[in-house]
């Protein structure tokens, strides 16, 4: 391949290092009004009245709207593709401003003024009276008999949804009986435990921000820091009760999202406020504190688990009862909690089966939503703490236990998602070798003293996109310029992960136009950009990548058709090679690589045979197309520039060469990998020092190895924070205690060691370039690997995240180690 697989520099790097790249707030006009959201100071109750009379007198105040002034419309906020089936639609459970207060900091009014000082002064003069109910901050409080239902019209209790998943026919008790018969009761061991993960904030360094105005064509136009411009357009339309065509969303560069901006946050309110101010531009940039306490968070999850296994380390059955704190509003609803339960079940193979029950609970605390890897970090924390606790109880080696019991090649989930290429065990092998697993496990056995060393690991699997759970669609447009260069327009979004760069590489690969002449339009404007649902899951290189490929094939065909006309030669004899139309010579058969053959010597690496012909409508030929590799360039016949000039201005056949396609992706696959950690625990200080950390990934073929590695670094750092320091805390009244970057501890450069990465580049037949998920997976297995290394070092099982010095010291004390 010419472009794909190369470490091309980011197309946006120059704009970003010069500070010229514009983010939402950099684009606002000079005369912009400022909006401030007024937040409730109770956690559960009702606003009885808001007296705005004094506040309105503050000079500079333009408009005050309260929860009594907004449309009586409840709307959903999740960045999911809309479902046309009512039963599958996202839960609509909030208004623009809410009279019913469901969390401390709920949005109850908004003030628009000429500057923030005026807004803040006015806020202090509002007279607000409440009716107050008991806060229900925790899952247990919300489920307790007599707890006030937060959404009585939707749910009689605070259970948003409960679902049950299982593999195998037997219940746990039946499995136990059967196992006693087959293996003998004395051969069986059991372990049960409760694991708890923490609620954390995304902490993208750019807050959630937008500004809006009503344009001369009557459209409310919102420029927002979002991952999902087209979905946002639909949600604003639902929230305002305006037709979609009257809403326009513009997404420029964004300063990180990590899933928080896969939700529609304050943009509908921003749209409402500009309308309320006669269409004047209004900015709504929330503070860091509001961003942490009033947008979305990662679900805090409790997993109550049980496992049955044999004395020689065979996993027989597991159960999990999972309770997930969903916060005050549904956001992504039950989807994340369900994803936790399914991955817990699927990551290991239980001989008799596994049951996992998932319950999402409404509580009066910050709403939980999407965050990098969509519940799977929680699932894997629970599954892999359990795996190591089983090993501890049975005296098994954690690497061997995982090799023997982890999800196997050819696995197909109950919804059909399949491991098309599989290398979980080879990933483990590479990681173990790199960290020196055998030697370290030996060396670290039987330590005494207060400073101890440990080595630990964890594995993960991750589905690439969301098919068949919801719609996967993407469209792309390509346009030829007079100089033979091209534009690519997509609604898949660049959110820092490098999407614009890899799409540039893909477009170049397929069209034969060199990357320096491929101009990707980074800004999405929903009035112009073709439809795509945006950046979430780890879908874009897979799903949008396929749309780019499909579009490129069509674009290439149109160029070659025109070349055929100019050169009077059949198009089939031509190809585009580095901006030139060349003769196409037959491909060197010997140069073709069979992806499976390259891995033939690796016993656990698997390429699941599959039938491309089963794929709908010509999608097979898209996946099969290998760009310009399918021919060899011969004599140069025509420069693309001359072709383009002629196509634009020919008096006999003028044609603007463009292509536009939709690709409906009906495939999915699993990516996988693992983390290995070597660390030192200073027990009296409760201090963990990571000596080495290695992530191994099978994300299929890498489109850009340097950016892939960078993506993994970021995920690993986030995983370290998740393991050791991050937790949003609340007091009993539901007030956030550390909603700022000083007290909520995301890692600094001092907290992160050098980060090591290993990739196994297996071609996945379902990926447009053999690629599969990479964006989210790096975060998943880090925290459990650290936890398991602490277990190895000290023998202490830390069952709650984060493993802060306080918690560690307490646990070591309890065990009498210090």
């Amino acid at each position, binding site marked *: 391949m010419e472009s794909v697989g190369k470490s091309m520099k980011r197309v946006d790097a120059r704009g970003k290092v010069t500070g010229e790249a514009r983010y939402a707030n950099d684009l606002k006009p000079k005369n912009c009004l400022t909006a401030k959201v007024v937040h409730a100071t109770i956690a559960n109750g009702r606003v009885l009245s808001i007296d705005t009379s004094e506040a309105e007198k503050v000079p500079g105040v333009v408009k005050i709207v309260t929860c009594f002034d907004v449309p009586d419309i409840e709307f959903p906020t999740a960045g999911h593709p809309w479902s046309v089936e009512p039963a599958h639609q996202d839960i609509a459970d909030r208004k623009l401003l809410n009279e019913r207060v469901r969390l401390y900091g709920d949005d109850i009014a908004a003030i628009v003024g000429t500057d923030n000082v005026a807004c803040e002064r006015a806020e202090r003069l509002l007279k607000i009276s409440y009716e107050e109910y008991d806060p229900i901050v925790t899952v247990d409080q919300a489920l307790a008999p007599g707890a006030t239902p937060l959404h009585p019209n939707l749910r009689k209790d605070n259970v948003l949804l409960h679902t049950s998943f299982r593999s195998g026919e037997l219940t746990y008790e039946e499995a136990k009986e059967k196992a006693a018969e087959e293996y003998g009761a004395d051969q069986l061991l059991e372990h049960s435990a409760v694991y708890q993960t923490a609620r954390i904030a995304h902490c993208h360094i750019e807050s959630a921000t937008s500004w809006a105005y009503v344009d001369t064509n009557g459209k409310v136009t919102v420029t927002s820091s979002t991952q999902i411009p087209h979905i946002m357009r639909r949600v604003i339309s639902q929230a305002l009760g305006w037709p979609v065509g009257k809403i326009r969303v513009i997404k420029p560069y964004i300063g990180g999202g990590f899933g928080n901006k896969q939700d529609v946050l304050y943009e509908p309110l921003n749209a409402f406020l500009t309308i309320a101010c006669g269409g004047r531009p209004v900015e709504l940039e929330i503070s860091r504190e509001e961003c942490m306490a009033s947008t979305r968070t990662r679900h805090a999850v409790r997993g109550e688990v049980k496992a049955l296994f044999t004395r020689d380390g065979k996993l027989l059955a597991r159960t999990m009862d999972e309770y997930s704190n969903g916060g005050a509003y549904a956001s992504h609803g039950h989807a994340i909690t369900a994803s936790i339960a399914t991955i817990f079940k699927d990551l290991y193979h239980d001989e008799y089966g596994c049951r996992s029950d998932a319950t999402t609970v409404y509580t009066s605390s910050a709403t939980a939503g999407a965050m990098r890897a969509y519940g799977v970090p929680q699932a894997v924390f629970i599954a892999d703490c359990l795996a190591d606790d089983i090993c501890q109880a049975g005296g098994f080696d954690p690497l061997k236990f995982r090799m023997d019991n982890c999800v196997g090649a050819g696995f197909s989930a109950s919804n059909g998602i399949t491991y098309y290429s599989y290398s979980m065990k080879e990933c483990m092998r590479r990681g173990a070798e790199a960290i020196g697993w055998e030697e370290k496990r030996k060396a670290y056995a039987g330590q005494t003293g207060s400073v101890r060393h440990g080595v630990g690991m964890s594995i993960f699997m991750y589905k690439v996109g969301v098919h068949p759970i919801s719609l996967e669609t993407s469209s792309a447009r390509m346009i030829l310029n007079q100089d033979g260069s091209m534009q690519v327009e997509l609604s898949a979004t660049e959110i820092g992960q490098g999407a614009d760069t890899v799409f540039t590489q893909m477009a170049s690969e397929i069209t034969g136009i060199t990357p320096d002449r491929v101009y990707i339009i980074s800004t999405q404007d929903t009035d112009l950009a073709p439809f795509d649902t945006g950046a979430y899951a780890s879908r874009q290189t897979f799903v949008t990548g396929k749309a780019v490929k499909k579009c490129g094939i069509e674009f290439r065909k149109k160029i070659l058709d025109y070349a055929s006309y100019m050169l009077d030669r059949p198009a089939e004899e031509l190809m585009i090679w580095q901006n030139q139309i060349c003769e196409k010579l037959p491909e060197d058969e010997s140069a073709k690589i069979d992806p499976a053959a390259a891995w033939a010597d690796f016993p656990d690496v698997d390429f699941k045979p599959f039938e491309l012909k089963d794929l709908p409508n010509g999608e097979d030929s898209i996946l099969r197309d290998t760009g310009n590799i399918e021919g060899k360039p011969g004599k140069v016949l025509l420069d693309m520039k001359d072709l383009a000039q002629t196509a634009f201005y020919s008096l006999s056949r003028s044609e603007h060469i463009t292509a536009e396609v939709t690709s409906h992706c009906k495939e999915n696959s699993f990516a996988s990998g693992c983390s290995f950690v070597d660390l030192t625990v200073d027990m009296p200080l409760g201090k963990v020092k990571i000596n080495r950390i290695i992530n191994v990934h099978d994300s299929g073929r890498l489109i850009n190895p340097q950016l892939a590695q960078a993506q993994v670094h970021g995920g690993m750092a986030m995983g370290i924070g998740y393991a050791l320091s991050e937790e949003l805390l609340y007091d009993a009244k539901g007030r956030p205690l550390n909603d*700022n970057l000083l007290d909520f501890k995301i890692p600094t*450069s001092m907290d992160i060691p050098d980060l090591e990465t290993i990739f196994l580049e297996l071609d996945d037949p379902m990926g447009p370039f053999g690629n599969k998920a990479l964006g989210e997976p790096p975060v998943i297995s880090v925290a459990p690997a650290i936890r398991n290394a602490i277990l190895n070092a000290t023998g202490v099982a830390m069952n709650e995240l984060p493993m802060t010095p306080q918690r560690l010291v307490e646990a070591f004390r309890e065990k009498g180690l210090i």
Partner: protein
Amino acid sequence: MLQIINMYVNGRREELAVDIRESLLETLREKLNLTSVKKGCGVGECGACTVLVDGVAVDACLYLTMWADGKHILTTEGLKTPTGELNPIQQAFVDEAAVQCGFCTPGLIMTAVELMGKGRRYTREELRKEIAGHLCRCTGYENILNALEKVLGYPKEKEG
């Protein structure tokens, strides 16, 4: 209350009427349209707003514009040569893939420029300390440190 101040911003003299409560972050962004100066928190926690005041890196969100009277301010906009070549730090950030979302980038680059001004070399561990006031949620700092080491570190021994 407005007061007139004079400061040199990226080499150019600016005479401005500023509110005495105004932060340098606000002045640079709102009045001079220097939007490389990013706001990540507004209260000195993240380092995204870092600029140089007389060669010293400060959080512009914590620095009153009034204090800048008569001083020289440098922002990322002022780093390119007049003909558009990147500063070595900027180039190293590009080459080492030290940029992802890019929101922390201008601030980090300004701290690096401050270090360049000191005319000495740094170990990787020293660089870790020097940039600990900058939060980056995307990169895990690995490639940022690689970029900084390239320009500010000790020359690497040639392999082989």
